[in-house]
């Protein structure tokens, strides 16, 4: 996939589906963190925690989980 920044958000071109998505923070950061790794939710949270202030862990987990669900539905992320 290709990620390209614009002034107000990030464009994402997904080669396998040919789809274009416009994504806002924290989605680009999640994708960058995953890279080519497979991570559990908590691993992802603590990895992001290294660079970002995520606030209260429980709420952050809930929110990350929602984003991951959306990303899975679009086929941008898959469960292994």
């Amino acid at each position, binding site marked *: *996939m*290709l*990620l*390209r*920044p614009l002034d107000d958000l*990030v464009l994402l071109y*997904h*080669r*396998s589906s040919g*789809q*274009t*998505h*416009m*994504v*806002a*923070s*924290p*989605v*680009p*950061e999640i*994708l*960058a963190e*995953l*890279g*080519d*790794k*497979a*991570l*559990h*939710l908590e*691993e*992802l949270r603590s990895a*992001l925690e290294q*660079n*970002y*202030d*995520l*606030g209260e862990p429980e*709420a*952050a987990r809930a*929110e990350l989980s*929602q*984003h*991951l669900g*959306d*990303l*899975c539905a*679009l*086929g*941008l*992320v*898959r*469960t*292994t």
Partner: protein
Amino acid sequence: MPVTLGTDAPARNESAPMQPGRRQLLMGGAVAACAIVSIRPALAQSAASVLHCQVPVPDPARSGNMVAPDGSVVAPGTQGAFAGAGRPFTGEEVKAALRNGKSLPGTSYDQNRAYLNYIRRLQSGTSGFTCYASLQMPR
């Protein structure tokens, strides 16, 4: 369950701007709900807009059936439903009716509402859909 990117991992160096230091991530409620917007094919819209198009009510495959007030297509003789339109409506007529509240030509108040409900429910693959979609182009 661990998650991973699809077959198609992001090309790293051209990825999102990563700022140094710990930055507050935009997390929370409303933002979370719309962090991804997918671009849908607009082919039908723009292609039909260069043509003059029409919307039959109902679809020719179902002509002879009637249109209920909620826009669904029902069997002939259904109480409270309207017979189909004698001729297809043009894109312009539908646009005037949807945007400016002008009645579709030759229709009563309730009939007009039923027809418009039918048109709003059109789906891809049904006759008239590309035409209707072309009227939905965002401004």
